[in-house]
């Protein structure tokens, strides 16, 4: 039982971070048909900006996170104005957009390296503090991340369901032409998508930095594959699906180590388990868990 609680908790923490990052990627794809290969680097940037304000300038940690989210939004908005909007108007195809996104990622990496260096960094938080919960050891930082990540996930879900702009984004994602003729302000939807994606990227970066305890400039890119797997698992372009996909992916990876699964899958096979689960789901539901939504369109 203790093992189940421990792995379940570890899985939920990892999954909630996957979910937050994946929903940003999914939103961008659903609205812009753009595979945002630079999403991982926005995580790294978010963690480093928070580090800069909270550790170097000794500002309040929560305030630093908010500044880093604003910075993520600002950079995303800037890229929309100078790059993505022009490419869309020039009718750039999906492959061209993907390659440009890859180029943005490759440019962001040396910029982050130049600005913040390559040394291992850590936030001013106690990464060793734990709580005992029915025999399981729950890390203080992980608990904080799980609570705030859950709150963020609920906020995102409510925003998409209730807020006017959230509804517009879903409408535009389902049918851009119909959305445009029915009076939805397309530019507003696009900008909102980038702002949310930038903010979520930064937030996921801070959460990941907290959970790992320490981070360096390679943090985001190493997780990118898992984020894309979460997006595909939950149905490409479906924000709710990405949330669920991220959570499931984290749970699959961690729970696979439980003894009941053939004595526990060795931890170096965690990615194999995650992608085997992804393949299995896609075999039965080729459009992902929420695939029926896509078929409805």
């Amino acid at each position: 039982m203790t093992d189940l609680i421990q792995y379940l908790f570890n899985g939920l923490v990892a999954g909630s971070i996957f979910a937050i990052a994946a929903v940003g990627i999914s939103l961008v794809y659903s609205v812009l048909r753009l595979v945002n290969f630079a999403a991982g680097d926005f995580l790294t940037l978010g963690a480093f900006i928070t580090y800069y304000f909270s550790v170097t300038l000794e500002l309040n940690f929560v305030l630093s996170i908010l500044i880093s989210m604003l910075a993520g939004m600002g950079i995303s908005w800037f890229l929309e104005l100078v790059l993505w909007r022009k490419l869309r108007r020039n009718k750039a195809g999906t492959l061209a957009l993907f390659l440009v996104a890859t180029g943005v990622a490759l440019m962001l990496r040396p910029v982050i390296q130049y600005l913040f260096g390559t040394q291992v960094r850590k936030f001013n938080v106690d990464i060793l503090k734990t709580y005992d919960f029915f025999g399981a050891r729950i890390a203080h930082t992980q608990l904080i991340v799980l609570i705030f990540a859950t709150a963020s996930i609920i906020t995102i879900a409510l925003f998409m369901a209730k807020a006017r702009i959230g509804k517009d984004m879903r409408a535009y994602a389902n049918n851009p032409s119909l959305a445009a003729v029915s009076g939805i302000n397309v530019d507003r939807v696009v900008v909102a998508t980038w702002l949310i994606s930038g903010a979520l990227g930064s937030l996921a970066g801070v959460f990941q930095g907290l959970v790992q305890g320490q981070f360096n400039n390679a943090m985001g890119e190493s997780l990118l594959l898992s984020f894309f797997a979460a997006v595909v698992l939950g149905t490409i372009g479906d924000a709710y699906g990405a949330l669920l996909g991220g959570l499931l992916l984290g749970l699959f990876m961690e729970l696979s180590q439980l003894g009941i699964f053939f004595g526990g899958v060795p931890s170096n096979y965690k990615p194999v388990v995650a992608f085997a689960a992804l393949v299995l789901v896609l075999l039965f539901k080729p459009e992902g868990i929420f695939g029926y939504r896509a078929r409805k369109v």
Partner: protein
Amino acid sequence: MKAKRSIFAVGITAAMVFSSLPANAAGVDLKIGTIHPLTGGNADYGIGLTTAAEFAAESVTKAMKKAKVAGSCKIVASEDDQATPALAVEAATKLVKSNKVHAIVGPLTSGSTVSAAQSVTVPNNVVMIATAASSPDITKFKDKDLLFRTYPSDAFQGKVIVAALIKAIGKGLTINIGARNDSFGTALANVVTNEWVKAGGDIGRKILWNPENATFDSEAKAVTEGDPDAWVIIDFPDTFAKVGPALVRTGKWDAKKTFFTEAMYDEAVIETIGVDIMAGARGTAAKSIGVKSDSWKAKRKAAKPDTKETFVDASGYDATALLCLAAIHAKSTKASDISKSLRAVSGSNGGKNIPWTKMKAAIKAAAAGKDFAYQGAWTTAKFDENGDSSGALFRVFSIDANGKLSSKDGEDVRF
């Protein structure tokens, strides 16, 4: 008659001039590239090795002038692989295809070494001397005799760890092993497993973790299960900076019962990971078997005062010096010729010992095509048939409560 005398005089003069020149009067111009992590968690080691390689090329060039041996030995480019195999392949490709190097010094890590050799240097016939790659897998690598290393194989270190463990906790007990899932980690974990079991002990858990994992708490939980008598952790600083806190959080791990490998033999690394995490731990690290190592450190510091010193720097010096001497000995920049001559100048074929402090003599001997044994600042060992260093010396170190390193010469293990 006068004309005949003039021609005769010119002939005699020319003969005298040519006979006074060394055998390789035309000289070889050897272009070397380096691959090391210049950024990231292993940057201190990579920068130290790269600086040492530059220092070697400068020393050899000066000595060549003094010895009146034509040609040159230059580091034409130094690439950063961040200790990542994919980046090492890119770096090697750039050095071979764009910089047209004849030889490469580095990489630092086993994963990078195997990837760069497999994908680039062996297919393109370029000699490479890895400076700190220790995986036993490299010994068996099919390299057309183009891959060498100045750092000892973990086939030695595995034995040292087990000997240190037996001394610390005794025989016949249970240990858990945690290792990074790469060429270095898996191979050394296997050596330790075999040696420990051979010595009558048990392996409780052997957990391999992927360095790019999102979290390490489940791995930490797994490696602390079973109440072992001790742990052996095989990892690099940037990954262990994430694994270490997770191990502490389990409440079951004890640093005082843990043995690390050489990557943790650096006080700055211990500081970064956290003194509160590392205090009390022990480990093993290769030690120089070179001659006049302290004198070399002083000279290197004087030549390159801005670069921080690490324990393995001189390996980069020796790798570069050996390549230069081999090219002079071979009178060629062709990979197969350099490869043969690397053995001729490192003592594999016999000959007298010539220390690094007498570089001019070494260059003269190489230019004359003589076999000799270069005695480096890091190693005096000759290359064996696999291109491995045939000798090694290891220290057993411990980390005190303030994160300071210490070791006793009496506990060193020599092979």
